[in-house]
């Protein structure tokens, strides 16, 4: 395999692992706890920005980019900071929106939040350098490891795999725990769950924050890899790509959402790069979003529980054949 091909494949793997992390966090919120978080990508973005500013070093006059709170924290503090920052934001947003709001209100408030967050990041140029975003974010331990770029890239892929496995085990533990069972119960019937004495709001808040932390970590790892982050990287439709992965794979099923990630953000959006341009440049891109929309509709119609539904017993081999037209 050529070096270039190795670069490409390792990049795709890194994207896959990072997306899986993100989708697992969303699945915890949506699939397990039933919270519709249309602002999920905002928490990814916050994690990314935080990791960036605490590793870029202090800002100085004449710098080509300007940002708040510059520092040069060593690995792995920026990643942890990304998780903490996203968790804190989740706490604030959760306290406001989960407390007394009905789920449909929550969904809309989240969507609005996602749009507003982009506006603030773009307009408040001193915060995270406005629309230009941040660049030259240092890659963790690059100098210390002394590897050539390709070796480093494979090490980074291994690091992402390691983090993804950790997140997976953690999310699975939550899903299987009594907490997870309570969460699913309240997702399916909130009133009944609260009637048997479960503090629904508090539990949802906990899960919301945990999901936010995971989002933040995935964003931090992502920004440290591509070494750049701008408002264009976390526009609100990105959340729907993640959501589509959850729905396609099977909400609340962690293996299912991994498959969903493989199919939607990585497979589907990446495969279209290989399509030859037809009609005019941009046509494929537009039709790609049309297909993401159709894919979601088809899955909700034919397999509302995804390829791997929540209850293990309900999985039938026929499912794969059925899902094929939608792929």
């Amino acid at each position, binding site marked *: 395999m050529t070096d270039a091909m190795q670069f490409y494949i390792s990049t795709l793997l890194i994207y896959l692992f990072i997306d899986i992390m993100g989708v697992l966090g969303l699945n915890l919120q949506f699939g397990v706890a039933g919270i519709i978080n249309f602002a999920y990508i905002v928490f990814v973005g916050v994690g990314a920005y935080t990791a960036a500013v605490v590793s870029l070093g202090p800002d100085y006059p004449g710098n080509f980019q300007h940002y708040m709170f510059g520092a040069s924290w060593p690995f792995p503090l920026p990643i942890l900071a990304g998780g903490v920052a996203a968790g804190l934001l989740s706490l604030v947003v959760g306290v406001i929106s989960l407390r007394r*709001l009905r789920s449909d209100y929550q969904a*809309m408030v989240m969507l*609005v939040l996602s749009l507003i967050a982009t506006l603030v990041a773009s307009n408040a140029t001193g915060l995270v350098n406005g629309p230009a975003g941040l660049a030259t974010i240092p890659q963790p331990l690059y100098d210390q490891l002394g590897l050539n770029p390709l070796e480093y890239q494979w090490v980074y892929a291994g690091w992402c795999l390691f983090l993804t496995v950790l997140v997976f085990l953690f999310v699975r533990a939550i899903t299987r725990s009594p907490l997870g069972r309570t969460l699913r119960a309240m997702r399916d019937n909130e009133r009944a769950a609260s009637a048997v004495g479960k503090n629904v709001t508090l539990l949802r808040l906990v899960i919301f924050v945990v999901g936010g932390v995971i989002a933040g970590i995935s964003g931090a790892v992502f920004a440290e890899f591509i070494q750049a982050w701008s408002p264009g990287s976390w526009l609100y439709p990105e959340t729907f790509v993640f959501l589509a992965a959850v729905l396609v794979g099977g909400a609340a099923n962690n293996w299912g959402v991994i498959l969903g990630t493989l199919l939607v953000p990585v497979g589907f959006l990446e495969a279209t790069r290989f399509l030859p341009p037809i009609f*005019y440049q*941009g046509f494929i891109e*537009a039709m790609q979003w*049309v297909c993401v929309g159709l894919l*979601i509709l088809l899955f*909700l*119609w034919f397999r509302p529980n995804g390829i791997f539904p929540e209850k293990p017993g309900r999985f039938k081999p026929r499912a794969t054949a059925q899902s094929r037209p939608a792929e």
Partner: protein
Amino acid sequence: MQQLIPAFGFGLITASILAIAAVGFTLQFSVTNILNLAYGDIMTACAFAAYLANHAGVNIWISLVVGALFGAVFSMLLNRLVYFGFVRRGTRLFGMIIVTIAVSLIIQNLLLAIFRPTFFTYEASQGPSYQLGSMVFTASQLAIMGIAVVAMVCVHLLLTQTQLGKAMRATATNPGLARSCGIPTDQVIDAAWLVSGALCGIAGVALVLNTATFSETTGAAFLVPIIASAVLGGIGQPYGAMLGALTIGIAGETAAALMSPAYKDVVAFVILIVVLLVRPQGILSEIAAAKEVAA
């Protein structure tokens, strides 16, 4: 400070468009329990329908009627062919929001694929300007405000004075009970989508008359204030939506006059958050409370 009164006047223009759109949006939710997040994109589609008519040589005000008719029929069919199918298959509120987003992606990007990434303008003149105190309005802006007032009065009369309106309200409050009382709820729902779709179409064309040019994302960009108005007024409440639209429209413009215009939408959002903290069910909320049981 002397900018405040003109800003209030500009706020009235935005509020008029917003009111038409928000009432349609909230009507869809109250009668069918669907939060149609494709609403902004349907507005854009209606604006394109009016554009095609306008460029075929039709007067802009007749084109507005074309846009309204397109919106009515399109929305009704969308509900019949897509949304209602999902509802019948047991897709819940959660799922329905995702369905509407999928539809939004499809509509917006189909428009992009068909019309390409460029900008469109109606063949229309703004007409002479009129000075009202320190507020300035063009003839077409006055017409938009007039249309908004007429539309609001019509919605009011429809809901309170007609058999259909009463049936709509009954369906909104409790569809099961309404059906057992002999109300043909399916037809009522069709009618609700026709009416709200027409409002959506009018709002779409009025929006474009206001922005001068438009592209496939114009309506979707307007969805935030629509949602904010609807939520502010108590979702599902037509009168609340009118009130919400007035608040958001005027607050946005006056905030732009007093502080940085970059934060127009942010101000609307802060108002929304504060109101939700104080009064999570929105300003007006009788149906909303009843709805919670149904949802």
